[in-house]
C-alpha cells in the first residue's frame, strides 16, 4: 500500500493504520490513548488528521490505510480538530502543573504547549473526582487529572491479563476505578504508571520526591529474574530515585515487573551495610577494609593449612554478577577447594557433569511469539517470571496452545490449553505420562520405565498439542529445577522434546542462572546442598542469605552456626547474618558496580554503576580480586570488570556459546509416591531476593503477606483442622506455627508453605515430608 503523509510517500503493509505509516515517515501525530502495545481505542481523538476526500477529520490511530490515500497531519482542518480536542481535554483538567507530580514528564502538558490555548474559555466549575486507594504501589490521589484514555484499563485486560481497573459511570462522571474496595495487585501494575499520560496514576513510593528534570537517566539491567529486563535508573544527588523500563523489544519489550520497578527502595534502606564488620568477643564491630581483608585472608590460610582446603566452601547467589561468580570460583579453586556453587535452592545435582552444555531457554525470548504450543513444567509462572508469563499470555491469546504442569493451581491469567496440577512427588510421573502419550501418538517405542504409567486425557491433550504445528517448546520452571528429582524431570523433558520435535529449555531461576555456568561457579567437590549436609569449617557467602535462599535453610543455618569462620559478602547488614557471620564485607548492589548478567536466552548484558557506592561498600569483583592478591593466588590482576568478563567470554559477544540442554547417562527411575503429607514451597515474588525483601512498598502488597499453611478441604479434614486455625508445622528439628488456610488449588495430600520468609526459615526442605498438627 502506498500512502502520502504530508507530502512524504510511505509503503506500508496491508492493514496498517495512518499512525503506523506516520511513524514510518517520521511525521508526529499527537495522541494520548494510542499505544503501540495496546488495542486501539480511538477515544482521545487527539490524533485527528485530514484525509483527502474524507469530509471529517479521521483518527490516525484507527483509520486503516487505503492505497493512494493522502493524509495531512498539520493542515488547517487537522490542527483545528486537534486544538478543539485539546481544549476539551483541558476544560476539566486541573491547570496546576507546578504542583502535579507528573509535571515535566506529562504528555498532556507537552502537547498543551503546541495545541492548547493561552487562556481557557471554560468558565464553569470543574469536575471533582474522588481519590482512590489501590494499594502501596500506584497512587490514585489525583483522579481529577484523568483524561479517560483507558490505557491503564486496556493494559490490565490485555497485558497483565486481569482487569483490575475499569471505567465506571458514564458521561463526564466517568471515572477510572477498581471494583468496589479492591486494590491493584497485578505483578505488572507499575507499567500503568508509565502508560498514564497525565498525573492521574503516579508512583506511590516516588511521589513528590523529585522532579523529572532533576533526574539523570542511566542504563542498567535488572538483577532479579532470568529475563534480564533493561532498565533506566533515574538518579538524583547520587541516590537512585526511580527505576523505569528501557525499551528492548527482544527482551522486556517496554515493560518491567513491579519487583524490578520498586526494589530500588532497598538500595537506600537503612539495612545497607556501610562498613566491614568483624565479630570480636561475640559482637560484630566495624573495622577498616584493610583490617577486614587481612583478617579474612589469614583466617582462610589458617583453616586451609590446619584442616585442608576441603573444609572451605563457598556459596553464591545466582543474582551475583558474572564477574563476581567467576572470581569466587577462581578464589576457591586457587585455595584448593572444589566446594563452590551458585544454586542454593537446588536439591538434585545428579545431572551435574552429564549436561551437554549450559542449560538455557533453548530459544530466544523473541521467538516465543511464534510458538504453536508450549508446555511449562513446574513453575509458579506468573510470580516467578512475570514478563515471561506475559509473553506466554500474548501467545495464548493469539493462537498458541499453552499448557501448564505444576504443583500449583494458581491462576496464571493465561488462557491455558490444558492444566495438570499434581503433588510435587507426582510431578515426574505426570510428565512421564505426557512423554508416554506422545510416544503412543507417534507410534514410537515407549521409553523404558514408563510401562506402568497410564496417561490421562489431559496428558494426552498436552502431548497432542506438542505434536501439532511448526514450533513447540517444553520449558522447565523454577520448581522443576528445585525439585528433589530435578534430573528426572530434565531427562523426561528432553525425551518429550525429542519425541515431539519440540525445543526443551529452562526458564532459569535468576538473573545469572546461565552466567553461573559460564563462570564455572560449579562444584568439583561438594555442591550447594552437600556443603551444609556435611558441615565445613569455613564458608564464604556471596550475596546469599542461606536462611531464606537455601533449599534446606534449617540445615544451612545449623552448619553456619557451627562453622569456625563465616565470611559474608553482602550489601545488607541486617537479618540472620548477625547470628552466624564472623565477617561482613559490604559489597555493592547492581546499581553501584559494573558487571554482567547472562539472561536465560544466553544474551550477555553488561552494565555500569549508576551511583557511587554507599559508604565504604565496594564492588564484589574488586573485593574478591584483592582477596586473591592477599592470598597470593595467580590470575587476580584484572583492573576492571570488563577484563574479568573478557576472561569468561570473548569481547563483543552478544549471545554466549556453549548453550545446550542435552543430558546423558541419567537413568530414568521414577519413584512412586509415599502416602505422607508433602510440602509445596513457592518462593513468593517479593521474598525471592535480598533487594525485594527490603523494598518497603513491595512489602506492603498482597503478594507480600506472611505465609500461611494452605491445604485443600480434604487435607484439612484429614488433619482435623479448619480454615483460620493455627497449625504447627514440623520438618526435622525445626517448626513453625502458621495459620491454616483452605485453598482448593493445592493438590491433595500437600500443604503449601512458602519458603524465603523468616516465619518459615526454621523449616527444612522445600519439597519434603512435613508434619502438620493443630497448634
Amino acid at each position, binding site marked *: 500500500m502506498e500512502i502520502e503523509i504530508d507530502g512524504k510517500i510511505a509503503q506500508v503493509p496491508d492493514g496498517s493504520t495512518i499512525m503506523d505509516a506516520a511513524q514510518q515517515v517520521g511525521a508526529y501525530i499527537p495522541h494520548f490513548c494510542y499505544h503501540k502495545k495496546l488495542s486501539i481505542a*480511538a477515544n482521545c*481523538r487527539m490524533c485527528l488528521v485530514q484525509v483527502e476526500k474524507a469530509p471529517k*477529520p479521521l483518527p490516525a490511530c484507527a483509520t486503516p490505510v487505503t492505497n493512494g490515500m493522502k493524509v495531512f497531519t498539520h493542515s488547517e482542518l487537522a490542527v483545528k480538530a486537534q486544538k478543539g480536542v485539546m481544549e476539551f481535554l483541558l476544560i476539566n483538567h486541573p491547570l496546576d502543573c507546578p504542583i502535579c507530580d507528573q509535571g515535566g514528564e506529562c504528555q498532556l502538558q507537552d502537547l498543551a504547549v503546541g495545541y492548547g490555548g493561552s487562556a481557557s474559555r471554560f468558565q464553569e466549575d470543574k469536575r471533582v473526582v474522588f481519590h482512590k486507594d489501590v494499594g502501596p504501589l500506584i497512587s490514585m490521589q489525583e483522579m481529577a487529572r484523568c483524561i479517560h484514555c483507558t490505557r491503564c484499563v486496556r493494559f490490565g485486560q490485555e497485558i497483565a491479563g486481569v482487569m483490575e481497573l475499569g471505567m465506571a459511570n458514564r458521561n463526564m462522571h466517568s471515572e477510572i476505578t477498581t471494583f468496589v474496595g479492591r486494590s491493584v495487585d497485578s505483578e505488572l501494575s507499575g507499567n500503568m504508571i508509565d502508560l498514564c499520560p497525565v498525573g492521574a496514576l503516579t508512583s506511590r513510593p516516588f511521589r513528590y520526591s523529585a522532579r523529572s528534570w532533576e533526574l539523570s537517566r542511566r542504563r542498567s539491567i535488572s538483577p532479579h529474574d532470568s529475563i534480564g529486563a533493561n532498565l533506566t535508573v533515574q538518579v538524583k544527588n547520587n541516590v537512585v530515585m526511580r527505576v523505569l523500563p528501557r525499551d528492548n523489544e527482544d527482551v522486556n519489550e517496554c515493560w518491567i515487573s513491579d519487583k524490578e520497578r520498586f526494589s530500588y527502595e532497598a538500595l537506600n534502606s537503612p539495612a545497607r551495610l556501610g562498613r566491614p564488620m568483624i565479630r570480636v568477643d561475640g559482637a560484630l564491630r566495624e573495622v577498616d577494609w584493610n583490617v577486614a581483608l587481612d583478617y579474612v585472608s589469614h583466617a582462610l590460610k589458617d583453616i586451609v593449612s590446619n584442616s585442608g582446603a576441603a573444609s572451605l566452601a563457598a556459596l553464591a547467589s545466582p543474582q551475583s554478577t558474572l564477574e563476581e561468580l567467576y572470581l569466587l570460583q577462581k578464589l576457591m579453586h586457587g585455595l584448593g577447594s572444589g566446594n563452590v556453587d551458585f544454586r542454593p535452592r537446588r536439591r538434585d545435582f545428579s545431572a551435574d557433569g552429564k549436561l551437554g552444555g549450559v542449560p538455557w531457554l533453548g530459544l530466544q525470548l523473541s521467538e516465543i511469539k511464534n510458538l504453536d504450543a508450549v508446555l511449562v513444567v513446574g513453575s509458579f509462572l506468573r510470580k516467578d517470571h512475570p514478563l515471561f508469563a506475559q509473553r506466554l499470555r500474548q501467545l495464548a491469546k493469539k493462537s498458541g496452545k499453552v499448557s501448564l504442569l505444576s504443583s500449583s493451581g494458581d491462576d496464571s491469567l493465561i488462557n491455558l490449553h490444558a492444566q495438570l496440577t499434581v503433588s510435587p512427588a507426582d510431578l515426574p510421573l505426570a510428565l512421564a505420562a505426557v512423554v508416554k502419550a506422545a510416544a503412543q501418538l507417534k507410534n514410537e517405542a515407549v521409553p523404558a520405565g514408563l510401562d506402568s504409567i497410564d496417561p490421562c486425557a489431559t496428558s494426552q491433550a498436552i502431548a497432542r498439542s506438542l505434536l501439532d504445528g511448526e514450533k513447540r517448546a517444553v520449558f522447565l520452571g523454577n520448581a522443576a529445577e528445585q525439585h528433589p528429582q530435578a534430573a528426572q524431570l530434565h531427562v523426561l523433558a528432553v525425551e518429550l522434546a525429542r519425541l515431539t520435535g519440540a525445543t526443551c529449555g529452562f526458564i532459569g531461576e535468576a538473573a545469572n542462572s546461565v552466567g553461573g555456568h559460564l563462570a564455572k561457579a560449579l562444584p568439583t567437590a561438594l555442591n550447594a546442598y552437600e556443603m551444609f549436609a556435611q558441615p565445613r569449617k569455613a564458608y564464604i557467602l556471596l550475596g546469599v542469605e542461606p536462611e531464606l535462599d537455601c533449599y534446606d535453610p534449617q540445615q544451612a543455618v545449623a552448619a553456619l552456626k557451627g562453622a569456625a569462620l563465616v565470611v559474608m559478602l553482602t550489601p545488607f547488614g541486617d537479618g540472620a547474618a548477625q547470628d552466624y557471620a564472623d565477617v561482613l564485607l559490604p559489597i555493592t548492589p547492581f546499581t553501584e558496580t559494573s558487571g554482567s548478567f547472562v539472561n536465560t536466552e544466553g544474551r550477555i548484558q553488561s552494565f555500569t554503576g549508576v551511583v557511587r557506592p554507599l559508604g565504604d561498600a565496594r564492588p564484589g569483583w574488586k573485593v574478591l580480586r584483592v582477596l586473591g592478591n592477599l592470598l597470593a593466588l595467580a590470575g587476580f590482576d584484572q583492573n576492571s570488570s570488563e577484563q574479568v568478563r573478557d576472561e569468561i567470554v570473548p569481547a563483543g559477544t552478544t549471545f554466549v556459546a556453549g548453550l545446550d540442554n542435552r543430558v546423558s547417562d541419567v537413568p530414568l527411575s521414577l519413584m512412586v509416591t509415599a502416602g505422607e503429607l508433602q510440602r509445596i514451597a513457592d518462593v513468593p515474588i517479593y521474598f525471592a531476593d535480598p533487594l525485594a525483601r527490603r523494598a518497603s512498598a513491595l512489602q506492603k502488597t498482597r503478594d507480600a503477606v506472611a505465609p500461611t499453611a494452605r491445604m485443600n478441604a480434604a487435607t484439612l479434614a484429614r488433619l482435623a483442622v479448619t480454615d483460620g486455625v493455627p497449625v504447627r508445622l514440623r520438618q526435622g528439628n525445626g517448626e513453625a506455627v502458621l495459620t491454616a488456610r483452605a485453598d482448593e488449588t493445592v493438590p491433595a495430600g500437600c500443604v503449601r508453605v512458602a519458603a524465603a520468609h523468616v516465619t518459615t526459615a526454621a523449616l527444612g526442605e522445600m519439597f519434603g515430608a512435613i508434619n502438620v498438627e493443630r497448634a
Partner: protein
Amino acid sequence: MAILGALNPMLSVGLDGDKAWRLADYVKRGGYSALRRVLEQKMPQGEVINEVKKSVLRGRGGAGFPTGLKWSFMPRSFPGDKYVVCNSDEGEPGTFKDRDILRYNPHSVIEGMAIAGYAMGAARGYNYIHGEVWELYERFEEALDEARAAGFIGSDLLGSGFSFDLFAHHGYGAYICGEETALLESIEGKKGQPRFKPPFPASFGLYGKPTTINNTETFASIPYIMNMGGEAYLEAGKPNNGGTKLFSVSGHVNRPGNYEIPLGTPFATLLEMAGGMRGGRKLKACIPGGSSAPVVPAATMMNATMDYDGISKAGSMLGSGAVIVMDETTCMVKALERLSFFYYEESCGQCTPCREGTSWLYKVVHRIENGQGRPGDLDLLESVTTNIMGRTICALGDAASMPVQSFIKHYRDEFAYHIEHKKCLVPVDVQRAGSGFFTATV
C-alpha cells in the same frame, strides 16, 4: 387501541382487540404467511433482498439508511455464524413507537427478523429491548414462546431446513445502547460503548461476526412488504420514501400519540389527526424527528411533508419519527436546556469531545436559562458544537450539537434576550398556562 389514527395503515391494521398481540390473532390477520411463502417456495436469498430494495424501505430507527442495501452488505458466503439484531432500544426523547409495535404487534417483528435471517443466512437473532419497558420484554418473550411452539422460529422452520433462533435481550435504559455498536457490546455483556467504525457490523459485529442491525419498525414492515410486493409498498409512500411510517406525536397537541401515515403526508394533516394545537394556540416550533433532529420553525414546518426528503428540505431530519410540537408558550432556552441535559447525561463518556463537550454545552445553556448568561455565550456554544460535530466515535456528539445549533439559529433573539435581561422573552405565567400542568394563571 394502539394507534390513535392512521391513513392507509399497514402495521396498525386490526390491532383493536386486546389479544391482538397473540399469535392466533396475528395469524388470523395474515401473519406468518410471508415467512411461510418464502420458506415453501425456497425463494432465493437475493430475491428477498431485491424485494426489500424495491420497496425503498428506509431504516425506521433514525438514520434512514435503505434496508435492502444494508442487507446486501452481509457477506453471504461467510462460513461461520451470522446474526440479525433488532434494535428496540428506543430511548430518544419524543419517540414511543417501537414500544407500541412490541406491545400490540410483536409477531410482525419476529416474522420480519426470521425473513431477514433467511435472506442473509443468519441462524440467530437478538431483539435488544429498552430496559425501561420491562413489561414489553416479558411480552416479547411470551410471543417468542408462541412462535417457537408453532415452529416459526427454532430449528428447521416449517420443514424447510432453514433454522433461525431468536432471543430477547433487555438493556437497562442507557440511551447510548441504541447506538448499534454499543448495543452489540451490551449484548456481549460489556459496557455499552460505541465501537470505532470501520470495521462495520456487517463484517465485524456481534461476537466479531457479520451482523445486521435494524430498527423494530423496519423489521415489522418486512412481512407487509413481502406480502404486498416491494413496488406496492413503495407506492404507498412517495418516490424514494416507501411505505407508511409510525409517527410519535407529543407536546402541545390535543391528542398526543402514535399515528401511522404514508410517507409524504403533509405535516398539517398529521397535526390535524393529532387533534390540532392544544387550547387553539399557535404553533411555534416543531422537532420533527426526535430530540436530536434540528428544530424547525412553525412557518417552514406547516409547509413540510412527512418523509425523509421533505423534512430534510425543511432543514431537519425525519429521524425516528418523533414529532415534538411546541406552541407559542414555549421558552426555547428552557427547552434546549432540557435537551442538552439529556445528551450530557446520556453521553457514554468514552471519547473526549462528547464527554467534555456535552457537559460544557449543558452548563452554559443552564447558566443562560438561570439568568447567568454572558455576552459571548452564544458564540461559545456554536464554537463548542463545531468542535464536537464530526469528531466523535458515534453520532451522539452530532445529536447533542444539532439541537443547540438549530435552536440558536432560529431563536437567537430569544437567547440574546435571556442573556441581556436575565429572564425569558415568554412571560413565566404564559409558559405555565401553556404547560398544561397549571390550571390557574399565576
